[in-house]
């Protein structure tokens, strides 16, 4: 197989969201508005220093959509670092996802205003971001007294912030839409940390992988880790067909190599342990080129290639987010001393048995990664730092207002399981509300509780890996729907926006035939209640 240029194709746009509006400088002053028509633009800074932007149509009907952007690195990334180098920290406000004008136009056509801030700090920030949003809502209402309803939405970490706002301040908003929502901090960073730890102990033990030094020294260590991880991923990619191990492999890794374990099987197992999807931007784990590899490619190679694409993004997040959170809480936060990785892959080892090279190889890998092997030392967290991390904002999953969730089924950064968790918790909540309604029926009459949750799944196509005439996979095509992080079309975003606006107007989410028609028109979405995404692995069996 020819060398696949995977790494050059990995996008970081999902992590570093597009910025829109020039930031103002004076904190806590009234917004500065340009008074233009048909769209009036206002900018300002909240009391915590978060710049914000508002855009209000001339036909403003009293509803405003508050958008929360996703994770932005909290440090600059030097230009020399592959893939994500050259990033400059920014708190430029983002009132609409990715500056998507089609979505903005939809809102304006309905008389809905848009607003969003760039938040006071980047990195993991729900605590401060929720406060910023509360203040921003108040500021908007004061500036535009006609305001009657606020709908809140956000992507990725912005989904956590949006859900948090709906949980803590339901009186402020009438509908919410967390999209490609991250899970709470511990399961989210555990997922990324599990993969990074595996890469370290098998492929390059000089990767630090956490427990970074405080301050600038730790930032420097994280830069070094980024380079090392990207380098080792490149080596794994180059040797994917042969199964050779990187020259930087640990003694444990070299022993596995000597025993005939292919490196691609090791890489796949790490991805499955962490819970990464086996479908990625360009690899569907189904298709194969015509000829001898027609069956072998999807059975033995494609799942590992998908983990290579997805894992590189996950590892980058693991390094930068771990460094950021450790800096916030004062010590190491990833701990896998009690993790049973064999249990983690129990359900998948038979499904990917061929790509994992059979039970003998799987057992050898799991033995090498077990806590009993001193050659694969487990990561130990700082209890005080973990306690501080646990005190950071966490969502309970309570649904207080009509809520729309949307997620790609193969999102490698914020797995669909994070949204599934809310679906499952809401099923329990709804059952309890229904039971309470029945109980109240004898005294006050029966009122069935209204459904407050709409789940929009964004599945990947049945098959989408393309091959050139030589039989090599093509990775220069756009990422498939349902893959990559927050990879939504304008039509899908507009559907979410419409659903929120409808719910804010009527108190009801779209349903029945109207919903199915809208979903079909938006394309590549499903509301099938039979779909079930696994929760993030650190929740255990569920």
């Amino acid at each position, binding site marked *: 197989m020819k060398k696949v240029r995977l790494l050059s194709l990995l996008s970081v746009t999902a992590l570093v969201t597009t910025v829109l509006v020039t930031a103002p400088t004076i904190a806590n002053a009234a917004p500065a508005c340009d008074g233009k028509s048909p769209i009036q633009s206002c900018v300002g800074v909240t009391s915590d220093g978060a710049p914000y932007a508002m855009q209000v149509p001339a036909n403003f009907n009293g509803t405003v959509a508050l958008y929360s952007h996703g994770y932005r690195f909290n440090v600059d990334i030097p230009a020399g670092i592959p893939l994500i180098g050259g990033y400059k920290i920014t708190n430029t406000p983002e009132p609409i996802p990715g500056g998507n004008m089609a979505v903005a136009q939809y809102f304006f056509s309905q008389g809905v205003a848009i607003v969003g801030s760039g938040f006071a700090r980047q990195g993991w920030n729900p605590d401060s971001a929720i406060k910023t949003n509360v203040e921003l809502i108040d500021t908007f209402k004061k500036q535009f007294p006609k305001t009657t309803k606020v709908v809140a939405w956000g992507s990725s970490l912005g989904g956590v912030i949006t859900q948090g706002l709906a949980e803590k301040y339901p009186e402020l908003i009438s509908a919410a839409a967390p999209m490609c929502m991250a899970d709470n901090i511990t399961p989210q960073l555990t997922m990324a940390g599990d993969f990074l730890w595996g890469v370290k102990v098998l492929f390059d033990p000089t990767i630090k992988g956490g427990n970074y030094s405080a301050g600038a020294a730790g930032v420097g260590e994280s830069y070094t880790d980024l380079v090392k991880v990207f380098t080792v991923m490149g080596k794994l990619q180059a040797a994917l067909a042969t199964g050779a191990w990187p020259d930087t492999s640990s003694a444990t890794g070299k022993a596995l190599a000597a025993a005939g374990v292919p490196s691609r099987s090791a890489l796949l197992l790490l991805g499955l342990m962490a819970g990464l999807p*086996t*479908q990625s931007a360009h690899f*569907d*784990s*189904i298709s194969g080129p015509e000829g001898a590899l*027609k*069956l*072998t490619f*999807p*059975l*033995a190679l494609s*799942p590992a290639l998908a983990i290579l694409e997805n894992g590189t993004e996950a590892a980058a997040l693991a390094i930068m987010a771990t460094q950021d959170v450790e800096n916030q809480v004062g010590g190491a936060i990833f701990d896998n001393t009690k993790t049973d990785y064999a249990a983690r892959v129990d*359900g*998948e*080892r*038979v*499904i*990917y*048995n*061929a790509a994992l*090279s*059979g*039970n*003998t*190889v799987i057992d050898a890998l799991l033995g090498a990664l077990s806590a009993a092997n001193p050659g694969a030392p487990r990561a130990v967290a700082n209890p005080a730092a973990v306690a501080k991390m646990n005190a950071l904002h966490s969502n309970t999953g309570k649904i207080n207002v009509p809520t729309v969730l949307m997620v790609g089924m193969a999102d490698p950064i914020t797995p669909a399981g994070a949204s599934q968790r809310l679906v499952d918790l809401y099923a329990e909540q709804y059952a309890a509300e229904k039971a309470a309604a029945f109980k109240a*029926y*004898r005294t*006050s*009459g*029966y*009122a*069935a509780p*209204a459904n407050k949750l709409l789940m929009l799944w964004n599945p990947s196509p*049945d*098959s989408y890996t393309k091959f050139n005439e030589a039989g090599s996979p093509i990775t220069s095509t756009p990422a498939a729907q349902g893959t990559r992080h927050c990879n939504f079309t304008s039509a899908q975003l507009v559907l979410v926006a419409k659903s929120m606006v409808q719910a804010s107007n009527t108190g009801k989410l779209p349903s029945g035939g109207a919903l199915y028609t809208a979903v079909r028109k938006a394309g590549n979405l*499903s509301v*099938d209640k*039979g*779909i*079930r995404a*696994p929760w993030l692995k650190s929740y255990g069996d569920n």
Partner: protein
Amino acid sequence: MKAMNRRKLITASAVLAVVGLAATALPAQAAEVGVSSTQIKLGMTLPMTGTASLGYNKIPGAAKAYFDYLNANGGINGRKITLVVKDDRYVPTEAVSKTNELILKDKVMALLAPLGTANVKAVASSVNPARRGIPVLFINTGFSGFADTKKYPTTYTVLPSYVMEAKIMGEYIKENFAGKKIGLLYQDDDFGVDALAGFKAAGTTFAIKVPYASGSQGAAAAAGWITKFKAAEADVVILFGVSSATSAMLGVAAQLKYAPQWMLGSVGGDATTIKLTGVPAGVLYNAIGFSPVPATTDMNDEYVKFFSDIYAKALPGSAFDLNVLLGMNTAFMTAQALKAAGPNPTRKSLMAAIDSKGATFASSALVPAGYSKTSHVGLTGYWVGKYAPTGDLAPIGGTYVTYTTDSGSGPVVKSTYKRPPMPAKGLPN
């Protein structure tokens, strides 16, 4: 929703009750996904193309042959059976994709006879038929774990489990090859895990065990296997793998003139399939084999005669082999389950019918089925045979001696099971 007071609620309930009563008096009508007034739609995924498809790709044609016969004779309460077949190439992720299509696009009532342990597991975890209440009938895998009704509440096995097969093999070895060196070739996944568990329960000790990773089987691999078996001086070599592994092994063994006493597992033991790969029939001669259904050449058996006649009319020129017989038998059992599910079958009533009556369904199998309200275990045993010079499996001594056991620690015993006679015209009563 507006509040509804108690009086209105009672009135509404009464109206609904009347509507319900009226509905039961109406003739057959659509009441379940995949069931209309004129048809019942079932879906099947299995390898139709690719290296793993050999032999197994005859199963859909066999099932359709029986369903066509059934449809021509009135169907099930006037409804014709439609079988939608999708090719999964034996790739688990593709099985997931194709099963999703069957459920979401084709809107089938039930999934029928999906093939392969990994594929069925992948579908169970990713498509979640249990959560959707979709029956997964008569799966083409003998992995014992699928009989776990808590984990797979809508799945019904039909083949005897690999544990049962290994236990019966172990018992045969004990009685006939005591003191001989035994070698085992097995697939290095749950298929093999089951086999190893069965042999362990039977107390079989091996001179050598050779695992192969699924997908790695081929001529080059087979040469390596033979080297290992030769080095271990195995007198008896058990091939407990898929057809492509058995064929590769026997083909290379013929070239190398390596001829231990072969013992073939039922999954990879269909002679027609093996011969199609170019393995000479003579290589199979005197090999020991196992089957839960009669020999496919036994035209004195009423079921074999009946099914082979239908198949010959439906697909003239296509050989009637073990995969065909099992495929037709599965369709035959499915028809009985649908008939027993009532005039307007639902997914629930279909499963309830198998739970309550499945153990008494007519079937070509020579061993009993274990269906009940608490068990989704299918057939529970095998007869032992030897391959004739033509390559066909026939009972040793000319008489079927069947053995039955369980997937646990239960003993292997000779079965006294009396098979129900074929219903009139081979149609469900």
